């Protein structure tokens, strides 16, 4: 038996060394590569050629003011097809696909039997399939979970030959609009819509969505064309490459949870306050994995809740820091850092639900010191999604 055959039998096994389609491009652009989700990825860029000058704060600000190009090709792109695909997905995801039209995208959650979050993901309806985008670090486990639970007449294709780029920021539309041709004008692609376009003859699927809180696009294209398109976009005066560091600070400001930090199997959609990920029409009827726990939490309230915290002073509180109300330990920080836009530290934490009300004054312990923090609505920085004129 050849090794190739073995791989065919065990397609869920994560390869030991994975190289992103844009690996060489990142290095040429001055990317400082770090290990992430099984790949080498740019944490930030450096060099004289960069209009933003390089570095997390500069890249963060550039994205808030202009447009940033993020390589998110580490994420898993999956196609689910077959006559029973819709019903089979609805048995796994708390999503109402009857209201998801062709060309629309929706946020959903992959839950285990106990309602624990295995991943968060995007689902789009294509004419003859469902297209899923899942997190990079979890994609192999997601694929194994889906394969285990999808019936035999439903096919899962892992689109490993596709790259994924995100173009984010208030000037993203202007830059992209100069290049695309599509089934309809780019201006008609509103937030959470999804369509087929071409740039210079390269076919691609583009959704109006992202992970920064800004207007922007996520572009799925053949891996072989990724370098050409990334280069073409970065020549635009509005566009610069942005690394993982700024991606994290941008999503934190936008109040968006990061899987593996703010979400994991020990969390559930109700505690995580991701109710928009639970279709209203199916919250009571159920029929999806994890429903029993979620229904109980919805009826009785969850013991803990994910909250935003504004931290006093300049010292950031990081993941793992314990949250106190007086002497009582009431929670834990799951993401935290300095907000470049706001100029002060912010954090996400899970706290006992009695302490989750806006304005509640708490303390976070950092290196044996207590930092004052107040529960603050998220997003910390207003979002800027394009929902049409």
């Amino acid at each position, binding site marked *: 038996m050849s090794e190739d055959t073995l791989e065919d039998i065990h397609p869920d096994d994560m390869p030991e060394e994975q190289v992103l389609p844009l690996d060489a491009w990142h290095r040429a652009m001055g990317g400082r590569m770090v290990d992430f989700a099984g790949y080498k990825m740019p944490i930030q860029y450096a060099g004289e050629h960069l209009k933003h000058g390089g570095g997390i704060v500069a890249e963060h600000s550039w994205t808030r003011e202009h447009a940033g190009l993020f390589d998110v090709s580490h994420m898993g792109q999956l196609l689910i097809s077959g006559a029973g695909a819709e019903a089979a997905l609805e048995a796994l995801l708390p999503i109402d696909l009857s209201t998801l039209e062709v060309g629309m995208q929706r946020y959903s959650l992959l839950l285990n039997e106990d309602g624990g979050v295995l991943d968060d993901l995007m689902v789009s309806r294509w004419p003859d399939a469902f297209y899923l985008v899942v997190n990079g670090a979890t994609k192999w486990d997601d694929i194994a979970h889906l394969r285990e639970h999808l019936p035999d007449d439903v096919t899962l294709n892992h689109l490993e030959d596709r790259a994924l780029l995100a173009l984010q920021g208030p000037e993203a539309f202007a830059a992209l609009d100069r290049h695309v041709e599509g089934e309809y004008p780019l201006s008609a692609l509103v937030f959470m819509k999804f369509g087929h376009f071409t740039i210079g003859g390269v076919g691609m699927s583009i959704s109006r969505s992202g992970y920064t809180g800004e207007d922007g696009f996520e572009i799925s294209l053949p891996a072989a064309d990724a370098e050409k398109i990334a280069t073409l976009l970065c020549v635009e005066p509005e566009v610069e490459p942005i690394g993982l560091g700024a991606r994290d600070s941008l999503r934190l400001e936008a109040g968006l949870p990061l899987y593996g930090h703010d979400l994991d199997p020990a969390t559930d959609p109700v505690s995580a306050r991701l109710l928009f990920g639970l279709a209203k029409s199916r919250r009571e009827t159920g029929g999806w994995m994890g429903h029993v726990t979620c229904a109980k939490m919805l009826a009785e309230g969850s013991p803990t809740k994910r909250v935003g915290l504004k931290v006093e002073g300049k*010292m*950031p509180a990081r993941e793992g820091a314990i949250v106190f109300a007086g002497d009582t330990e009431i929670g834990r920080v799951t993401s935290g850092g*300095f907000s470049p836009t706001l100029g002060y530290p912010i954090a996400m934490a899970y706290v006992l639900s009695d302490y989750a009300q806006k304005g509640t004054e708490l303390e976070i312990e950092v290196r044996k010191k207590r930092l004052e923090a107040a529960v603050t609505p998220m997003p910390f920085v207003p979002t800027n999604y394009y929902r049409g004129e």
Partner: protein
Amino acid sequence: MARYFTDEHEWIDVEGDTATVGITDYAQEQLGDIVFVELPEVGATVDKGGDAAVVESVKAASDVYAPITGEVVEGNASLEDDPALVNTSPEEDGWFFKMTIGDKSELDGLMDAKAYEAFVAEL
């Protein structure tokens, strides 16, 4: 005045009985944008190789170690309002703290500028 370097990327300037400590240009470059520096209290005793300060970049917190044993006599107050001084002037205005020299022989194990340059080139 003599300047020494540690393999943890701190520098130490020795002038008479006191020394000034900071982090190197290489270190600030690796850390990226610095948003907060936590300095040791004046009067605190720091031990060679032990935790002395914490530098927070946007992405992470990192320890700064004491190059030698001694007592902290001053912290750089400028860093409170402008922690980015560590990025813009790491080896001058962005110094962290001044300390007494408990044991001059501890300096012997540190690198000089040339040795440190060679050390960084290998990284």
